[in-house]
């Protein structure tokens, strides 16, 4: 006979396990739920908008981390792909009248197709070359957007209709919130699965991965495609959130912004970059009054993190958890780990 209590713990354990598969720890769920109520808890429109931007950059950084952290290719053309998604959605709306919701998805698929192409093209190259080739493709996208004035209006800028007929942040918050959660769950799921194992293996030692039977082409391309899909998705959101597009959205400086967030958050964790966005974006908003010195601090922080703690927040967390586990081990006796 099974007592009620053990049944319950069994159920909870099961649930926990299942959620864990989606990368949702109780803490993560709690934070997400809290965040979900934020528009009702926070009356301050400015802070709400900051949250929207943090969510946007967090999502971008998670997508970036998928390729930078796992297969070790920092996609320098990331902003270009984001811009591609944005322009695709915007042009579909203005020229064909296609709903921005479908357009956003179409933009994401467009970016994913480009990601697939870049993945195939850079297959034979080292990480460094692949990164630079992706950069060049991003620059070409930007140059084309600037030059094809008949289509994109180039530097004149493209007026884009918003998702909603309002400028208030609340509805946009929920759009990006859903995008963010879905991205988070999918990416956590992917990286915790066998697929993630293949990505990690490829990123850490491509040759050893090949001898283990991991097909570099296939998994690199899958990885790039997913990562670029996220970029395109966020691009579409950006377009219908800001209402204006210029080719500047594709410039390298935006890639660097995302990259900084991803690295401060910690590579190969997905959650680190998301968390970092909520630190970096607001902190630097607060520093606006410092003018140029804000960016000086930005640079200093980047250098300090890279020199002293290149693993970022996620690594720090793992380190703390590691200490705890070690203590636990010592307490529970030599059973588990006499050698490590």
């Amino acid at each position, binding site marked *: 006979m099974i007592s009620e209590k053990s049944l319950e713990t069994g159920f909870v354990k099961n649930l926990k396990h299942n959620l864990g598969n989606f990368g949702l720890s109780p803490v993560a769920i709690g934070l997400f739920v809290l965040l979900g109520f934020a528009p009702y808890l926070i009356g301050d429109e400015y802070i709400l908008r900051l949250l929207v931007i943090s969510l946007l950059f967090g999502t971008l950084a998670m997508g970036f981390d998928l390729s930078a952290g796992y297969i070790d290719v920092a996609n320098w053309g990331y902003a270009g792909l984001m811009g591609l998604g944005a322009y695709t959605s915007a042009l579909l709306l203005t020229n064909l009248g296609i709903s921005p919701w479908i357009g956003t998805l179409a933009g994401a698929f467009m970016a994913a197709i480009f990601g697939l192409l870049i993945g195939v093209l850079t297959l034979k190259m080292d990480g460094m070359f692949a990164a630079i080739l992706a950069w060049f493709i991003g620059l070409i996208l930007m140059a084309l957007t600037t030059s094809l004035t008949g289509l994109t209006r180039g530097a004149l800028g493209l007026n884009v209709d918003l998702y909603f007929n309002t400028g208030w942040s609340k509805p946009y918050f929920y759009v990006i919130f859903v995008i963010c959660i879905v991205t988070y769950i999918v990416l956590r799921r992917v990286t915790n699965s066998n697929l993630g194992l293949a990505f990690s293996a490829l990123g850490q030692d491509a040759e050893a991965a090949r001898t*283990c039977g991991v*097909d570099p082409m296939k998994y690199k391309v899958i990885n790039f495609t997913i990562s670029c899909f996220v970029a395109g998705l966020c691009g579409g959101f950006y377009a219908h959130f800001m209402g204006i597009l210029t080719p500047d959205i594709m410039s390298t400086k935006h890639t660097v912004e995302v990259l900084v967030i991803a690295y401060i958050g910690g590579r190969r964790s997905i959650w680190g970059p998301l968390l970092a966005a909520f630190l970096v974006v607001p902190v630097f908003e607060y520093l606006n009054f410092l003018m140029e010195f804000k960016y000086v601090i930005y640079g200093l922080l980047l250098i300090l993190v890279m020199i002293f703690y290149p693993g970022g927040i996620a690594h720090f967390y793992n380190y703390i958890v590691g200490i705890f586990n070690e203590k636990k081990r010592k307490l529970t006796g030599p059973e588990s780990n006499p050698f490590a």
Partner: protein
Amino acid sequence: MLLKTEGVEKRFGGLVAVKDVSITVNKGEIFGLIGPNGAGKTTFLNCISGFYKPEKGKITFKEQEITGLSPTQLCHKGIARTFQIVRSFPKLSALDNVKVAVVYGGKQHKNPEKHAKELMDFVGFNAAKDVLADNLNTMQLKRLELARALATNSELLLLDEVAAGLTPSELPDFIDLIRRIRDSGVTIICIEHVMKFIMGVCDRIAVLNFGAKIAEGAVEEILNNPEVMKAYLGEENVH
């Protein structure tokens, strides 16, 4: 007969690294590949494992031609290898290191994790299985790499100087492990410098010198071959 190479040749620019090498490896044996430094042993091994594409020659595995296939394809056909300098996925746990090979090695397992654990026990991996590979020592990494190679369901295992760097006290254990692997049905080709290892485990050996094969046969036979003595043993210290 499991593996056969016929007239394999590999060039780097003007340099011929491997010249017209033909060997035959039978199923179930441990085949040694020896020769002085720079004799082209590793290059030859890279040709078999698909890292290099030979310019000339033919390699057959289980009656099938496999010349020029990629390492991934070869892995799925049943050829696995280890590296001269141990390679691991440093930021994955030891278990995940093996799991990659179980999952992608070409054969479906119902419970990859369990299979990986069994293999790790089999090779005598004695550290905690959830430790990052980054924190393992060489000995542990070597065993890990073996487990990983076995995890791909290999029928042929290519070992590149697997005994290098072991202390004399660790050696017997390792020789025993290699034997056990062979007994589990895996054919082994190994490159080795450590003579004690060669004499301890190999059934037959081939000798390479300046990229060409100069002898092939049973261990005693080869070690008494005057040409081999001249080319190889005369210059190297015998362990």
